């Protein structure tokens, strides 16, 4: 929020502008006019949080309503792809549709990894609608600390 300056004019801050812009984009892309904030302001589905360490990468993917068996995870070299389908699940006896905000239908996202993954080491768990994919970094590609010898 901008504050009233001492001359009665609003003080301007680039962060306020950016906040306002982000909120506008959130409204346009994902929130469909919802009053308040949404937990995933961006437009991409499914939204992902990416965690990194020298041991590998962990991806958290929000997939509410999707069963583990309906998700495909493929690893090819340094690329990982996650695809599947959010069931539409229409009520057979529906009389009227009042509101449609949830994402349904096919989805597919791929990500380039900072290393070549071995598909055998990839593990995935699915809990309460959040998929967690762990991609370990192969031993040969782990960063190595080089000792500096005294001259």
């Amino acid at each position, binding site marked *: 929020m901008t504050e009233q300056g001492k001359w009665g004019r609003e003080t301007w801050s680039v962060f306020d502008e950016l906040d306002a812009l982000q909120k506008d984009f959130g409204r346009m892309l994902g929130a469909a006019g919802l009053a308040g904030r949404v*937990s995933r302001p961006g437009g991409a589905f499914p939204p992902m949080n*990416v965690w*990194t360490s020298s041991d590998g990468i962990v991806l958290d993917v929000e997939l509410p309503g999707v069963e583990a068996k309906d998700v495909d995870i493929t690893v090819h070299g340094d690329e990982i792809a996650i695809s599947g389908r959010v069931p539409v699940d229409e*009520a057979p006896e529906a009389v009227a549709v009042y509101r449609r905000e949830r*994402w349904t239908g096919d989805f597919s996202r791929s990500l380039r990894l900072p290393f070549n993954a071995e598909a055998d080491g990839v593990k995935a768990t699915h809990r309460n*609608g*959040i998929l967690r994919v762990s991609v370990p970094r192969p031993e040969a590609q782990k960063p190595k600390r080089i000792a500096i010898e005294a001259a």
Partner: protein
Amino acid sequence: MNKIDKKENQEVKKAGAEVSPVVTDAAFVPYADVDEVADGVRVRVDLPGVADDAAEVVVENGVLRIEARAACEAPAGHDLAGQEFWVGRYHREFALGEGIDTDGVKAKLKTGVLEILLPKRTAARARKVAITN
């Protein structure tokens, strides 16, 4: 997460406490689908990361209230490199019409989707009337 939350988190981190940057106490508006079906109204709400015991559905004074808390622990020893969703509290309310039987409301939570069935009062249900000559 706004810049004040971020600043506070950094300060807590400096103090040596373990803070997961994806978790916030802000209440988010969850996405919902609402349909009228023959016997009532069906509400489906996306609540990813919410366990059975972390969601609450309350009907009070003609308002359906949904409160939930998501959990998604940070993997040990990892840094957050990209964030597209936030983990925190969910809150949403819907005003209910007169025709809803508030005693018969049912709710179930499965793979992060809450489904609520709000039955219509018998008098509010559609009835087919036979036409006689």
